[in-house]
């Protein structure tokens, strides 16, 4: 069976996840093509202010109080959310997997120390920490990514560590040790591939959290000052809730659907990959 057909098979068994995947792909595409589809800047004042949605073809979702197009804002906001989400997830995985692997493989006091540090960051109220960090470092895409990574890595680390704790006892690892492979080789070639499934799953949840945190930070005024963001759009709508409720509806819906899609896809991955179990590398 070709990979394509088997993919379709899997998709058929998990329709929700498949739709979610399509949605995310479509969103990414739209976000990338935004400058060609909707013009250079979401900040340009292109029409009469406070235009209601569905009243003009050129501005399907209406405009805000300065006449900026809301659909354009959504697309550019998608760029921020997806970019920050992807970067944060990547960085979180890098750090989380690294720390978790070292802790899980070595055990002993290294494990205890690293896990203590992880628990410390896990207990702290995440958004407060993120807010302070971004504020102190001055708001920008990099400080936001850094802040999200700092609060997200512990859960990844703990998961990877517990996977490692179980896996390192297994026969294939013992066999690899006996055959003289170094610790690094064992970690990279034997254990990690088997730990991949839960790591992918937790990556999905990290991505969802990253998108929500980025939105919250932008809402509080700590987002990248030059970038349009869904959180910023929601904040801008607060004064006009009465007269222009749609200004808060679209960006919120966008966040909801994106996070939902990520969650559904992750759930789908979890059940799909779970079936195949962990096969050991040879």
């Amino acid at each position, binding site marked *: 069976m070709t990979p394509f057909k088997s993919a379709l098979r899997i998709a058929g068994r998990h329709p929700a996840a498949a739709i979610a995947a399509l949605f995310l792909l479509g969103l990414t595409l739209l976000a990338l093509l935004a400058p060609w589809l909707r013009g250079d800047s979401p900040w340009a004042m292109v029409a009469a202010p406070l235009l209601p949605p569905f009243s003009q073809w050129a501005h399907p979702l209406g405009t805000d109080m300065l006449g900026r197009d809301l659909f354009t804002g959504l697309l550019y906001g998608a760029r921020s959310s997806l970019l920050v989400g992807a970067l944060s997830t990547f960085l979180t995985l890098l750090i989380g997997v690294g720390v978790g692997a070292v802790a899980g493989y070595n055990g002993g006091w290294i494990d205890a120390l690293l*896990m203590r540090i992880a*628990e*410390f960051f*896990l*207990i*702290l*109220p*995440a*958004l*407060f*920490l993120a*807010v*302070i*960090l971004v*504020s*102190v*470092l*001055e708001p920008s895409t990099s400080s936001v990514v850094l802040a999200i990574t700092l609060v997200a890595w512990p859960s990844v680390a*703990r*998961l990877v560590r*517990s996977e490692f704790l179980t896996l390192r006892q297994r026969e294939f690892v013992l066999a690899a040790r006996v055959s003289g492979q170094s610790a690094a080789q064992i970690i990279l070639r034997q254990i990690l591939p088997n730990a991949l499934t839960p790591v992918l799953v937790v990556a999905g949840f990290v991505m*969802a959290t990253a998108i*929500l945190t980025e*939105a*919250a930070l932008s*809402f*509080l*005024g*700590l987002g990248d000052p030059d970038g349009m963001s869904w*959180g910023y759009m*929601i904040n801008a*709508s*607060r004064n006009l*809730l*009465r007269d222009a*409720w749609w200004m*808060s*509806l679209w*960006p*919120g819906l966008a*966040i*909801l*659907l994106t*996070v*939902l899609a990520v*969650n*559904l896809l992750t759930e789908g991955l979890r059940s799909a990959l779970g079936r195949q179990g962990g096969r050991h590398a040879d």
Partner: protein
Amino acid sequence: MKGLWFLGNRLAQALLTVLGVLVLSFLLVRLAPGDPALLMAGEAGSDDPHYIEQLRVQMGLDRPLASQLLTYVGKVIRLDLGYSYRNQSDVWILIAERLPATLLLLGSAFLLSSLIGVGLGILAALSARRRGWLDKLISTLATLLYAAPSFWLALLLIILFSLQLGWLPAFGMETVAASLSGWDRVVDLARHLLLPAFTLACLFLALYIQLTRSSLLEVFRQEFVRTAQAKGLAPRRILFAHVLRNGLLPVVTFAGLQLGQLASASLLVEVVFAWPGIGRLLYDALSHRDYPLLLGVFLVISVLVVLLNLLTDSLCQWLDPRIQAGGGQA
């Protein structure tokens, strides 16, 4: 005896965590580009060179880092959290004024979300056993709630209940400028509390529903329930005596773990509803770059979360003595 040792152990751990928070906030100030004294003077105090010089001396910026840290920790222990130039007041006083409002909000939200969440979770589990439609409905609701940003949900609720229907007030904790007393005041407070507490509860509703549902379903399958059924105990008694007690354990554990998230979400809710708690205080401090206040709030909320964690851990231990010091359930 064992319980006491356990408590002592957890207390020591909590203290260590608090120390860690102190070190973290100490480092954060020095992390920023530029002069730490200028940072701590805030936007409002930065034009007062006399004040900045004063701060420089107080923070001991010319001394080695370790010495500065010691000074800082010593101050915090004496409840000296710094001075807010803009508000012309000690940080500790500003926080103490607002803390009760936040505690009220957190407490109400926790109650609402656990009561409603567990209730709906029970319904869902019962419906799942019979393959009913209620289960599907509740689960879908939970999934949607989990993905929605809390501040957006807050705005939607305001639009619906406050602006369109006019049932509930949209902002604040009490009606501004109306001096109410006694029962009227309590009712007024409750009306203002309802939307923010409910919004905050929504976030965790989803998790409580799912958790209760799955843990109950798990418990239904277990041996001792069948044993009890065989013994002839009435179904309802089974439910309450055995199922709930064992099924609720993960819920309580979970509650403890989620306190940090609850606190974080309360920040957003307080901002949207202009609820005068420390989350709102943080937001004001943020807008005015009032760093002493910012850090003070961070410190206090972190310590609060650590203490509440300690509380729920002890509660877990009491509910099921089989659980040892830890909480390292991934």
